[in-house]
């Protein structure tokens, strides 16, 4: 069966150009970049070229880029590194994060709250926008770190990180942003934003899984989670993931070159999809404000039906999507992101589906997908007790 993949925020396929770029490193270019002999030096040159590519994509100096295993490592390194390198010295044990951070930040910060830290979680409104006034008023003498993501993975909502970085700077507070969903998809310049730490990940931008990078501003320090060798200038031990690094460099170079064309094309598909779903499926609601969102993502709640059931049925019809419903995540709680926007209406969170578009999405698939959604939602509502109750209350 022909598959229609609409889950690019979960992961992306590796681009053919990226795959081709790494093939020599699975063959003849096998040397350990730390070795001083020819085999090693040859590979060392290539990972430094990859570092340049990554740096260029985010407007950084190459020596500020630390390659790692991905966004979870990057995010946890920032929080745990903060604990080691900053808190003790300055006695600043207060951290501020947003209510919609990725679990690597959200859950780690919550853990730190149990370790003597004070953690403030800044709420978002029904559109997913951050309460900036709340953030400002939460700042105190002991605040040492603010972490707010650039783009939310579930809703595509874009956060005003430049403004938040400025607020942090004025108070001598460090600022970190998890930019996993943004980099390669929208203009992003670390110097313009003036962030101290930035997390990015390979497999969200057409490089393989298991590679990412952390930007660390000049003069700032974060101790590695794993200690041992001197790799990455003593900032991340372990023999280099050469294939991953080369891939990430190539992927970001391509993404930067193709960004504006992608934005135009993919944005049109997303907009057309969303317009049709909201117009043609009754009781469908968009999660996230209409305008302040990345062009890749559409998160919709289909009232009276449960997300996992929708996801399974769409999968049967060849369409891959994600849900914020608890039932598919292996936990008992629905998405904390959609919950934060639903004013505590858990039913809406259980009913949410994320559609995310990317490089291989096609406008001509939109009709098929919308038709299957209409069909699946109608089927599931036909025996939903909540829908029945609602229709009775409407006198139908």
């Amino acid at each position: 069966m022909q598959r229609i993949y609409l889950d690019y925020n979960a992961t992306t396929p590796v681009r053919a150009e990226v795959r081709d770029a790494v093939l020599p490193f699975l063959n003849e270019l096998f040397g350990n970049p730390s070795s001083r002999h020819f085999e090693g030096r040859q590979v060392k040159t290539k990972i430094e070229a990859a570092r340049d590519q990554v740096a260029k994509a985010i407007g950084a100096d190459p020596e500020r880029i630390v390659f790692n295993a991905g966004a979870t490592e990057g995010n946890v390194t920032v929080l745990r590194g903060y604990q080691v390198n900053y808190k003790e010295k300055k006695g600043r044990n207060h951290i501020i994060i947003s209510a919609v951070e990725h679990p690597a930040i959200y859950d780690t910060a919550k853990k730190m709250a149990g370790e003597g830290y004070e953690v403030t979680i800044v709420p978002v409104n029904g559109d997913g926008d951050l309460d900036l006034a709340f953030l400002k008023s939460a700042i105190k003498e002991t605040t040492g770190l603010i972490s707010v993501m650039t783009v939310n993975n579930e809703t595509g909502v874009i956060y005003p990180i430049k403004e938040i970085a400025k607020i942090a700077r004025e108070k001598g507070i460090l600022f970190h942003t998890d930019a996993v969903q943004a980099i390669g998809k929208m203009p992003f310049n670390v110097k313009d934003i003036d962030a101290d730490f930035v997390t990015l990940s390979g497999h969200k931008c057409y490089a393989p899984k298991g590679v990412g990078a952390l930007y660390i501003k000049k003069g700032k320090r974060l101790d590695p989670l794993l200690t041992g060798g001197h790799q990455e200038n003593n900032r991340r031990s372990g023999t280099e993931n050469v294939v991953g690094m080369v891939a990430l460099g190539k992927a970001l170079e391509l993404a930067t070159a193709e960004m504006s064309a992608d934005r135009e094309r993919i944005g049109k598909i997303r907009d057309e999809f969303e317009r049709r779903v909201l117009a043609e499926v009754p009781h469908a609601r968009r999660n996230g404000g209409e305008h302040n969102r990345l062009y890749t993502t559409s998160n919709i709640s289909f009232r009276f039906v449960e997300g996992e059931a929708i996801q399974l049925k769409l999968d049967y019809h060849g369409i891959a999507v994600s849900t914020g419903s608890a039932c598919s995540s292996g936990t008992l709680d629905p998405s904390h992101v959609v919950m934060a926007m639903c004013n505590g209406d858990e039913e809406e969170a259980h009913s949410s589906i994320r559609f995310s578009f990317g490089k291989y999405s096609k406008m001509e698939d939109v009709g098929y997908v919308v038709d299957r959604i209409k069909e699946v939602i109608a089927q599931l509502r036909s025996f939903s007790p909540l829908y029945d109750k609602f229709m009775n209350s409407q006198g139908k």
Partner: protein
Amino acid sequence: MDYTEKVMDHFMNPRNVGKIEDANAIAEVGNPSCGDVIKMYLKINGDMIEDIKFQTFGCGAAIAVSSQTTEMVKGKSLKEALEVTRDQVADELGGLPPIKMHCSNLAADALHKAVKTYMLEHGIA
């Protein structure tokens, strides 16, 4: 999340869905905030469940257990219906993922609630 073929069959082609307009026993369990609500409609004649239908808001497992449960008790006596357990329903389906055993395996509860209420109202011991 691995569902057995039988779970998927009951989910994709649920048996006995909908309402019974002249049902004489109805019960609902679950809560929308937990992501599962199961409502059972029974038509009981004498000691027998003549007809049974369900409405379910919930995940694939919740829909499949509802469908499976109705199949297991349609045409059976009230006593037999009360003997059907959650675990038996899951076994009949070839098993459920562990996390679903508690949160979504609610259909037997709805069935028991409907039957017990009916017995109470009709003075059946």
